[in-house]
């Protein structure tokens, strides 16, 4: 690590002395080694994340539209992009929609995930393995493939959902699920929950296996009902896992992009179904208004960092304790 020297015996710092007592090898002296080790990672993070972030902050304060893409120098406009955005009722519609979508999805996902985990704990072993394999299948599916399959399931003419509902006596022949925004988001929720539950279920299940059986048996001997044992023993013990999982779900569901974008491909009016991710995409890549797109992006970043701050602080604390 110190030199290119292939032979080892003569390195004075690291190699053991050829004779006499071995000096304690401690890395207490200030060294350039850690900085050299960090350099490649830091370089790529600066290039691909920090620089774009910086560009984005600058651009969010510029008039940067189609003309600027063809060489016209951008003009500094201060906070005008932000003012324009925040006074545009459409942004608030998208924000409200995104937050509602995110909270509903994160809530339903965590609830269903915990129920599935509890189920895995009580069922017979073969059934549990079946549930685990099914969850893994859904978890492993690439998101684009999942979206394509769900599009086929909900297809208005030949989809199996309409066929099944019609067979049950409801007339869903030719029903288009994506036309109405509310129904569009219902379908999106079904898909996102289907995709996200496996992660929650496995995390919660791992948490449940940490609850010692003896405690639950003791509670049962003391006459606690199943519900009470869950409420007063199991739940407090798995709540640290649950709070992290819930937070991660909220962050992930706030920035949901691929699912919405691909459902918009399938039908659904973009202006009525945009969430923050697809809105930024349509502003930037779609209409070339990079100034406005950057401003919304900064808004999303600030929102995300604010949401995740507590989680990061906690990880950092664990790191320092170790």
């Amino acid at each position: 690590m110190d030199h290119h020297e292939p032979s080892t015996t003569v390195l004075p710092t690291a190699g053991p002395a050829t004779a006499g007592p071995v000096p304690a090898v401690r890395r207490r002296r200030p060294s350039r080694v850690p900085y050299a080790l960090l350099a490649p990672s830091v370089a790529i993070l600066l290039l691909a994340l920090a620089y774009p972030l910086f560009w984005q902050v600058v651009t969010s304060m510029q008039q940067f539209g189609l003309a600027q893409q063809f060489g016209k120098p951008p003009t500094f406009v201060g906070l005008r992009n932000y003012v324009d955005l925040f006074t545009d009722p459409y942004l608030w519609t998208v924000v409200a929609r995104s937050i509602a979508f995110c909270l509903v999805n994160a809530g339903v996902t965590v609830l269903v995930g915990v129920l599935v985990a509890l189920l895995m704990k009580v069922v017979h072993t073969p059934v549990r393995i079946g549930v685990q394999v099914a969850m893994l299948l859904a978890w492993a599916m690439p998101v684009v493939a999942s979206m394509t399959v769900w599009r086929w399931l909900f297809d208005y003419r030949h989809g199996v959902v309409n066929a099944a509902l019609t067979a049950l006596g409801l007339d869903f022949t030719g029903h288009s699920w994506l036309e109405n925004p509310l129904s569009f988001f219902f379908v999106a929720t079904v898909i996102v929950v289907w995709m996200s539950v496996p992660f929650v279920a496995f995390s919660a299940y791992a948490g449940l296996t940490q609850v010692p059986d003896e405690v639950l048996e003791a509670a049962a001997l003391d006459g606690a009902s199943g519900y009470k044992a869950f409420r007063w023993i199991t739940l407090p013990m798995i709540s640290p896992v649950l709070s992290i999982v819930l937070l991660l779900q909220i962050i992930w569901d706030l920035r949901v992009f691929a699912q919405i974008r691909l459902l918009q491909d399938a039908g659904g009016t973009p202006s009525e179904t945009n969430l923050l991710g697809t809105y930024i995409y349509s502003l930037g890549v779609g209409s070339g208004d990079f100034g406005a797109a950057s401003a919304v992006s900064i808004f999303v970043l600030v929102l995300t960092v604010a949401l995740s701050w507590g989680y990061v602080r906690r990880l950092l604390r664990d790191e320092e304790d170790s």
Partner: protein
Amino acid sequence: MSTIAAARPAALRPPGRRRVRPGRLLASGVGVLVALAWAFPVYWMVDSSFMSSVRLQDGRVHLLPVNASWDNYASVWASGSFLPALRMSLAVTFLTLLVTLVFAFLAALAISRFRFRGRRGFILAVLLIQMLPAEGLFIAQYRLVGSLHLLNTVLGVSILYIAAVVPFTVWMLRGFVAGVPIELEEAAMVDGLSRTQAFVRITFPLLAPGLVASGVYAFLQAWNEFTVALVVLQSDASKTLPIWLRSFVQASASRDTDWGQVMAASSLIAVPVIVFFLFVQGRMTSGLVSGAVKG
């Protein structure tokens, strides 16, 4: 606890563990339904991929393929765009995987084996970056890659993937490196190895599971990624598999969607990943857990 103890002490039951409990049977029934619900879309994809569009549109639900054939796969293959996309995905994934592992490994070494000024700042940055949504940065990244003249190239998209994957990989590997006691290395050095040799012969082999686990993570991220690829890879020749699948679906939709072919295309992407995932998942989750838990 006191509330429980006070609740109903009379409910003492003989602890016969092997009785058939109707509650558990009911739960198992529900469990079967849950398993079916989660597996069904994947099953339906594969099932449909073996049927002709005539069968798929005859208004009936075929839970098993009727007149199963590989025709749809043959048509997808014949469209000629699958192989280039596969090559592109392989190139991007392996470049990302390789560079990420090297970079992240070095950085993990730095933060778990050294105490230095700026260490805390780096760790904080690594944790915060994991939270940054691609959706909040892709416009700027698109401009960056454009100004480097790397739009529609393997290198251009890989740079963005590496930056996205490195932070979590550093975090994960850090746990593994910290899990190998420094005393092992020192003992080897007392026995006459140089520090480098001690590291290569003693520590490195012990890190193999960690490298595999983080490699799998980087692989899946790069292989399945959609958002950044959609923005940075816009030419037909440079599509990765997820982007290729989307265009395949779009093209098919413009002429009355052949769902059999579309499902064959989806299966081509999904089935290898699913098989790979089922194969490595035990190792990966244990890797994730020990990486996250060890300090």
